[in-house]
């Protein structure tokens, strides 16, 4: 994998990243994922306040050619969504780890965090 993997983040096998800050988790898709999708043209974000379980569909990211589901890496309540993506979904391509974040979740079960991959493990996926 030649794409950027940040040491400070946690990951899933399905190419989501998680940035932990206290009880909150910011979630996005990895550089590898955006590169594979190319040309992200539409993002369907969930509503703030929605409860979601780990592994459930969190949101949908569409490129010209494909529709991809993003799965919740942890369970919890959605506390914020990156509504800037409504008008500029291509931000995910240009800044997958910063401006292109998708959703913030209030983590329900801290133990689930331990199931996430660290950077070294994700690089092997």
């Amino acid at each position, binding site marked *: 994998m030649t794409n950027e993997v940040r040491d400070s983040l946690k990951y899933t096998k399905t190419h989501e990243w998680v940035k932990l800050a206290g009880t909150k988790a910011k979630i996005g898709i990895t550089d590898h994922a955006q590169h594979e999708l190319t040309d992200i043209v539409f993002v369907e974000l969930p509503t703030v306040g929605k409860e979601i379980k780990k592994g459930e569909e969190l949101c949908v990211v569409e*490129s*010209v050619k494909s529709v991809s589901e993003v799965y919740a890496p942890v369970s919890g309540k959605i506390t914020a969504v990156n509504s800037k993506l409504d008008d500029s979904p291509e931000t995910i391509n240009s800044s997958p780890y910063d401006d292109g974040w998708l959703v913030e979740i209030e983590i329900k079960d801290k133990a689930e965090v331990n199931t996430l991959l660290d950077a070294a493990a994700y690089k092997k996926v």
Partner: protein
Amino acid sequence: MVLRSPLYEAQVKLGATFTEFAGFEMPIQYSSIRDEHFVVRKKVGLFDVTHMSNVWITGPDAAKLISLTTVEDASRVETGKSQYTEILRENGTIIDDTIFMHLGEKYMMIPNAGMNQIVTKWLTDQAKKHHLKAKAQDVSRDYVILAIQGPKSKDTLQKLTDMNLDAVKFFGCQNVKVAGVECILSHTGYTGELGYELQITPTTKAAAVFDAIMTTGKEFGIQPIGLGARDTLRLEKAFMLAGNEFEGGRTPLEATLGWTIFWDHEFIGKEALLKQKEQGTFQRMTCLECVEKGIPRHKCEIQKDGTAVGIVTSGTLSPCLNVGIAMGYVAPEKREVGSILDIIVRDKPIQAKVIKPPFVPKEWALKQ
């Protein structure tokens, strides 16, 4: 078995990512679908479409066989002309849409990818059944097909041939040397832009032509284009993709291809079409442009006031318009231009307006 184009190695070198389409491993994109789309609309792009089929139709009754098996009367298609048409079953549904080129003594037909054996067998069987002295021969693997498309396609190609391209009319075809290699050139394409298609045999000579076009086109901004942009380009022009638009058995009348039917001759499927025409109640191909955010996709339901009135056969985000666009079949009384219908995307209705095709007008780049 997955087939590869003889140009596969060249495409790997150009950074292509590949997809399987109709049994072929073909480039889906090189840089990005969006970038490649605009290269063709504004400059010039080179496609390898070797996955399409090539069938020679020969013999004294060749024209008769084509007339019998398509909605076209081949006797009125002059030498040096390419003709778009459809091959029908007895029940009027489309087996395949195709272009045939009248090259003097013989015809070359270009069925869709993966249709070579089906079409060849159909033509052979019909020739036998109707005692016609005509032969259909599948030569798909003997040819590489290149498509050079975009406003600068003519300027690029002209530098590689002695033949004056001004003399080749739209839907004209003839033998011509490109970069010193004998090709069949047809002034046709699937992008709605100025463009040409080249049939090259033997396939070992194709890489030289491909490279020559890429090198010569540099000054015009040429790029290699994958199947991803081929799909968005044709969809903006509302051109049919057989595997999508004819899926499940559709007639030319349903597909709004009535203009291609030459009624004044006998052909397989004619009776069924006449019956359908009289009834008039069938769903028809309809173009929908979203007025809300969202991207319609293949098989999304089309509704009016919560009731199903049709189905999407192709959908995408139009790179030129930056809105969702869809082609699909809609009940005849619900498809008036300007009507608002709902396309159901992931259980949610997205409003879309019925438009008169194409979605993107001719020479779009000049109007920007």
